[in-house]
């Protein structure tokens, strides 16, 4: 009988299934579980955005869009980026609308990597960074950021990771799973390193850009004019606008890089959902107030989470962005997997072990505050009970 497993490509087989999966499977079988494990907004998409999608269906826009996206959607996106970041992109040629931010990661990997090329990945990070590089036969070179540095990328670490095989680096701030933010000041030394290595491309994942609780100013390596021509910004509406199910994202960058990404997109995806592109026009142009209201609410929850973690005796750097806290559980003596599994089994709260996001996350856990205030409060009470039990040696 044929061994179908042996037929799976080595690059795919080499990537383990996401470690987060295990906890979802466990949690989904239990009753009364509070989940602070999901990496998506709990808010329903603002009504005017949903209505714009509905109206596009009513008006009969049920066809493919142009490969790179509808012109009005691309214009809305580049105008939004100009308004929020002060960066100018041409809607034609420098903007590609994708199926979520994740497609952008995949496109970047496939468009840029030759087998054996090295890709620098700043960890702990979104689980797809490494996987997309491996699927494209690249070699991931990871940089571990540290809690004592607030999980910011340090110039010396970047410098040390660069070799003559480095094709690109990928980083995501505000960060999943850490909630870390890098300001323009923090990014300046990174720019300096990159200026010494003019061959390296930057993939900047900025999906959480609007979820920044300390500054209204959006930071990006693309804001440095001397770097802009080799930065590809991956962005989208999923997180900031609570539009995960619309499956819509975009990539912005120099024409020479957007063109090969568009080529792959054209053959493999054709075009992003038309209905969602109409929704995006409304989101990008008219929804600043709704984004602010959601950001304010996340900020309130963030403070409740931080207090809860302190009350439970867990050391946590104060996250400035996204909707995650990433406390250290080192002082409990458990590994992050053990901590999460026992917390789930004993107190019925699902969170995610930091090891899922890279080796350097092994002493931390990711707690999402994209959940109701009531659930967050109950979960924090249970966390305090749990750490007290651990101290008593239960």
């Amino acid at each position, binding site marked *: 009988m044929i061994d179908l497993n042996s037929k799976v490509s080595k690059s795919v087989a080499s990537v383990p299934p*996401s470690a*987060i*999966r295990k906890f*979802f*499977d466990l*949690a*989904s079988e239990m009753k009364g579980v509070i989940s602070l494990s*999901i*990496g*998506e907004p*709990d808010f329903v998409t603002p009504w005017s955005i949903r209505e714009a999608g509905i109206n596009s269906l009513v008006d009969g826009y049920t066809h493919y869009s142009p490969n790179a996206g509808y012109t009005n959607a691309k214009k809305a996106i580049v105008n939004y980026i100009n308004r929020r970041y002060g960066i100018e992109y041409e809607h034609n040629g420098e903007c590609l609308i994708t199926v979520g931010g994740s497609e952008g990661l995949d496109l970047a990997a496939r468009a840029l990597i030759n087998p054996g090329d090295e890709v620098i990945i700043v960890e702990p990070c*979104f*689980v*797809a960074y490494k996987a997309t590089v491996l699927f494209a036969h690249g070699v991931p070179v990871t940089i571990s950021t540290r809690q004592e540095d607030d999980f910011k990328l340090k110039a010396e670490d970047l410098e040390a990771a660069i070799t003559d095989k480095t094709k690109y680096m990928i980083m995501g701030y505000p960060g999943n799973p850490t909630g870390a933010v890098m300001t323009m000041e923090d990014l300046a030394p990174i720019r300096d390193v990159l200026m010494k290595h003019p061959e390296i491309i930057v993939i900047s994942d900025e999906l959480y850009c609007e979820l920044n609780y300390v500054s209204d100013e959006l930071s990006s390596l693309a804001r440095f004019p001397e770097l802009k021509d080799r930065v590809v910004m991956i962005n989208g509406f999923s997180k900031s606008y609570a539009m995960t199910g619309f499956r819509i994202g975009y990539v912005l960058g120099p024409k020479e890089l957007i063109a090969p990404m568009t080529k792959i997109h054209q053959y493999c995806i054709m075009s992003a959902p038309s209905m969602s592109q109409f929704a995006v026009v409304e989101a990008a142009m008219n929804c600043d107030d709704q984004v602010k209201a959601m950001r*304010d609410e996340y900020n*309130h*929850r963030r*403070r*409740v989470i931080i*207090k809860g973690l302190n009350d439970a005796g867990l050391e946590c750097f104060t996250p400035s962005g996204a909707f995650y806290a990433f406390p250290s559980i080192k002082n409990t003596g458990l590994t992050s997997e053990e901590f999460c599994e026992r917390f789930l089994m004993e107190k019925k709260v699902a969170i995610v072990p930091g090891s899922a996001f890279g080796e350097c996350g092994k002493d931390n856990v990711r707690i999402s505050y994209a*959940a*109701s205030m009531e*659930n967050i409060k109950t979960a924090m009470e249970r966390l305090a009970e749990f750490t007290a039990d651990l101290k008593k040696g239960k």
Partner: protein
Amino acid sequence: MIDDIELLKIIEKDPRITPADIAVQLGAAAEEVEAEIDRLKEEKILLGYTAEINWSKSYPEKVTALIEVRITPQRDRGFDNIAKILSKYDRVTDCYLMSGAFDLLLIYNDDSLKNIAEFVYNKVATSEGVLSTATHFILKKYKSNGIFFEDETTDDRQAIVL
């Protein structure tokens, strides 16, 4: 320094929230929040706390009417005097000065259409300066003060790896 608007929005959303919980959400001290709430009350900015109740479930006899009132403004006192008088009735829960085809809008609650009709023709229509009235009855409430009356908001998101 507490942002008043942020504080008031939190209270508006959950009037039962304690100053200690507000303090955590705002990253302030509980005493600071209490002092701020006292000040907002003193300055008549924070006027009171109300509950949103679906009366149709527990007290179906209750009827709510919106009464439009056209009036002749009085010299020097405009619409204020008559608005204050009509507001004094306990069953008038809301009284607004409006733009458009009429002047005052009253929201009035009682146990029957008959009682409301009596209020309109005995009390409102006969008040000095009232030119005419038009009464509308609420048939069903779908949303009030930002709260949906029938939709259940449950978090039924299914597992996704990300």
